[in-house]
């Protein structure tokens, strides 16, 4: 297993000329005339820092010009940007490693407005390093973009998706205008920080219907992992063994030869590790295992934001109990006190993610998802502190306003039923090899959308609730080239056209089955006041296993309460009830459900859910019998803190909260999925945070 020590030559050590270490922080801070308060304090030089106002009675343990909560997509971008502009930067993250969910993402970054990669592909050029050798995927006219068109696209009132929702209508105009204007600069910024982009192919959800704007990030397989050189070993990329990932890559990187050239591999590792490498190289400092808790403001609802409090949130190896270590350590501050107070001389940037992992908070959007059985994505990777709504909660406590609170329901796939069964962490295919695999203990079996015809899906009492084959279907993303939402596909799309939402057209293209809503229904067996939806199960027999070839063995499944095997259906129900942590009631109807299902199969007709219309039906009769968990994953968060075009947090009176910025999924009012949103937010926040007066 490759570790940092295997390639010491490629550690992101701060460059003597460009980066700053802790001692240089002190020297530079004083030399820059920041005054008596200009020192970066640490545990070995701790001093009580007492300032002028009443709030500054606070005794600070650390200080930096810019303090960032969250070391993921928006946070790392803001950190590097602020550092580039001369600020000292300290990032706290509740996890043991950086990257947030960016690290396990597909690394599809959708920007546009005429960004550098669009221009490159329009000209049919390669990248500066000559890695991209395939022809562009899109024609030049599909890449011919500009900021006005991009802004028009992401504020288009007329676009309605196949779920009947409008992904662009409710976006905050000032916020997304700034986003559009900064897309080209952010693309270049990422490229300047070791991020390499594939050919552009389409656009990502919420990124507009008029042009192709999305490229993925890649590295080249090579003899060593060297971010500067753009290479990664097969082992580090998780490509050496189909059943192993690595501490470097929690999810195996995919073959990117079609969008780059031979030996290219892609996923969030190519993006996250590259940015992290650059951040560490430039002297950004990090405090990991450190959960952002509270914002410290001069007065509860007025005055400048002065800093944050942050609590110790150690993540320990599930088997050994040892404190997990980040892959790279340079720039880490090892602080283990229960709570520390960190002063921000200029600004705090909240980039700690959204609320998808907090059932109480996300339940305000959809009460059925207060069900704790259904996790957010990346629960193993990030732990229970991931997507915990920390920024939202802390922001509200100092008077922050909210935005886009309905947008969780207007992005087609915020929460969804995943096709990966038999694991709680059903978003990714993490295999053994990454230190957090022990938190999930099974990779799951990805049965695909087509696999849902091979079993019956039952609720917590063992009853079917929907046509199985319709459960994983998701509506289109409404992004270039279009996916049945807008009547004009590709370049034929007409923005701001009433015909995009003409009711006759909407009726024609509506394509959403509400199976997810049936899955979340208040199920029989729930008791007041806890009307939980309950777990879902895929039930099938040995014949299904032989038809499909599903691998019901470690590491795909394990004895962790998300996979069961039994001699009879009755025994299967008993095992689930005994050993699944969220099975609160018995699956008392399961034997009857299976018997009834088999009679439907014999008759060739499913009168309850019309399954016979969609796919063949198969008896569940050959022992042994199996059950795999079916997960509802809440992945994205939409709806959060309100910010202006400078990413400054705005209060309930519409006033900026001085010194407080936010980006990524902590922010509401922009119904755009993914990394493109967070990176630009971070770029903008980092740019303006350093313009704040220093206290």
């Amino acid at each position, binding site marked *: 297993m490759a570790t940092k020590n295997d390639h010491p030559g490629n550690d992101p050590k701060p460059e003597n000329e460009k980066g700053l270490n802790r001692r240089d922080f002190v020297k530079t801070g004083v030399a820059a005339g920041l005054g008596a308060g200009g020192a970066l304090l640490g545990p070995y030089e701790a001093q009580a820092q007492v300032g002028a106002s009443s709030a500054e009675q606070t005794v600070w343990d650390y200080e930096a010009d810019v303090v960032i909560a969250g070391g993921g997509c928006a946070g790392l971008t803001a950190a590097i940007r602020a550092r580039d502009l001369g600020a000292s930067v300290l990032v706290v993250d509740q996890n043991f490693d950086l990257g947030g969910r*960016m690290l396990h*993402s*597909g*690394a*599809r*970054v959708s920007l546009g407005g005429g960004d550098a990669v669009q221009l490159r592909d329009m000209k049919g050029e390669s990248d500066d390093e000559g890695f991209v050798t395939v022809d562009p995927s899109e024609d030049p006219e599909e890449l011919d973009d500009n900021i006005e068109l991009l802004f028009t696209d992401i504020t288009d009132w007329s676009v309605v998706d196949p779920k009947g929702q409008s992904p662009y209508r409710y976006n905050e105009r000032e916020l997304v205008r700034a986003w559009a204007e900064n897309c080209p600069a952010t693309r270049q910024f990422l490229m300047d920080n070791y991020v390499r982009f594939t050919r552009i192919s389409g656009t*990502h*959800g919420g990124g507009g219907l008029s042009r192709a704007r999305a490229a*993925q990030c890649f590295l080249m397989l090579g003899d060593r992992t060297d971010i500067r050189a753009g290479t990664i070993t097969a082992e580090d990329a998780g490509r050496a063994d189909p059943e192993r990932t690595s501490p470097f890559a929690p999810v195996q990187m*995919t073959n990117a030869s079609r969008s780059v050239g031979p030996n290219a591999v892609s996923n*969030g590792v190519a993006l996250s590790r590259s940015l992290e490498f650059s951040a560490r190289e430039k002297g950004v400092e990090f405090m990991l295992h450190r959960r952002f808790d509270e914002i410290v403001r001069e007065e509860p609802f007025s005055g400048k934001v002065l800093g944050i409090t942050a609590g110790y949130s150690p993540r320990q190896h599930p088997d050994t109990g040892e404190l997990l270590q980040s892959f790279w350590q340079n720039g880490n501050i090892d602080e283990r006190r229960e709570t520390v107070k960190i002063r921000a001389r200029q600004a705090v940037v909240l980039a700690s993610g959204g609320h998808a992992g907090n059932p109480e908070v996300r339940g305000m959007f959809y009460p059925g998802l207060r069900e704790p059985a259904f996790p957010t*994505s990346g629960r193993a990777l990030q732990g229970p502190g991931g997507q915990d709504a920390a920024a939202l909660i802390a922001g509200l406590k100092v008077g922050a306003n909210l935005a886009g609170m309905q947008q969780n329901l207007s992005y087609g*796939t915020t929460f969804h039923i995943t096709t990966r069964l038999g694991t709680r962490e059903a*978003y990714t295919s993490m295999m053994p090899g990454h230190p957090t695999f022990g938190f999930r203990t099974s990779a799951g079996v990805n049965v*695909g*959308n*087509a*696999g849902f*015809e091979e079993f019956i899906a039952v609720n917590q009492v063992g009853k079917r609730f929907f046509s199985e*084959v319709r459960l994983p*279907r*998701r509506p289109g*993303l409404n992004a270039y080239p279009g996916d049945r939402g807008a009547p004009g596909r590709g370049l034929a799309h007409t923005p701001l056209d009433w015909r995009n939402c003409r009711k006759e057209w909407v009726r024609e293209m509506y394509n959403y089955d509400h199976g997810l809503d049936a899955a979340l229904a208040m199920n029989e067996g729930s008791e007041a006041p806890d009307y939980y939806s309950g777990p879902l199960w895929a039930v099938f*027999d*040995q*014949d299904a296993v032989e*038809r*499909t070839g599903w691998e019901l063995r470690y590491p795909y499944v394990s004895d962790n309460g998300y996979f069961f*095997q039994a*001699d*009879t*259906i*009755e*025994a299967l129900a008993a095992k689930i009830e005994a050993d699944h942590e969220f099975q609160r009631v018995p699956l008392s109807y399961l034997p009857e459900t299976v*018997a009834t299902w*088999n*009679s439907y*199969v*014999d*008759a*060739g007709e499913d009168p309850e859910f019309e399954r*016979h219309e*969609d*796919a*063949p039906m198969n*008896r569940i*009769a*050959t*022992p*042994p019998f199996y059950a795999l968990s079916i997960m509802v994953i809440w*992945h994205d968060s939409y709806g959060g803190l309100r910010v202006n075009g400078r990413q400054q947090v705005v209060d309930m009176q519409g006033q900026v909260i001085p010194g407080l910025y936010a980006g990524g999924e902590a922010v509401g009012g922009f119904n755009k*999925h*993914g*990394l493109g949103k967070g990176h630009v937010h971070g770029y903008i926040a980092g740019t303006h945070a350093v313009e704040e007066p220093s206290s």
Partner: protein
Amino acid sequence: MISSEGPTFSVEVSSGEVDAGAEMTLKAKASCSPAADLRGQALQIMDQDGALVERAELTEFDGESNETSEFAVKAPVEPGAYTWLAVCPALATAGPSSEETSAPFSFTVKPHSTRVVVWDVPSTIESGETFSVKLGVNCSGECRPDGWTVEVRDQDGERRATVTFGGEPWPATSALYYAEVELSAPDTDGLHTWEAKALADDLHLPHAEAVASFGVRVVPAPECLLMVVAVDMESQTPVKGAKVVVHPYKTFTDERGVAEVKIPKGEYRLFVSGKKYFPFRSDGEIKTNVTIKAELAVDRELSDADIWT
């Protein structure tokens, strides 16, 4: 756990219901005032007739009360409700305030739950043909099958076969014992519901009866040949192992991507699916031999890369 408490002596039973003849797990706790270390002292389990069933020993003392470790006692064979007695003679001499030397505890003995499983039933059978099915029997006590009998009865209640079990469990199961039985198809076309019933009369321990229904579909003689050619929509290469369903007929494509199904004339819905492909569907009427090309679309309507950044 179920507890029957006297003031100083209690017995916990692992479950209020236990299979006939199965082991129950008990744990006894005894205390007296003033507290006394009674480790090494015996206690007796007496049945409803006062007969000694089991002995145990107090082995733990925490300064206040004494406990046995868990110990097993065999439940009666006869189903019913029982109240037994745990007796601890040492408590009678342990001190002036010791009042109870015995504690009753209750439980219910039930017949073993039985399950019948029927599989490998052909999806279509022509009238007059013989066919075989597999029968499996399993009980909550995981008893061996010796003496188990299963009757198969048809839609009119006529007994079609009687099977006696023995041998080893079905592969990959722990205690599902199986047998294969040959049956004759009914004379009339259509879907018939038959039953397999596990009989409990002659078993060593009492077992509940169990029944499983299964469908026997009799079809007329075939008149046409439906040939299905399954190919990948993009590459046009044959798809081996695709599932072909023309209800109630089922088969799989071979290495050429071809499946042949002999069927009577009539209206049909054809599905071709499986592996990584979405279902291909074709509805129509078949009057003569016909070949249908099924172009299968790969399941990547919305891939992970499409959706998740």
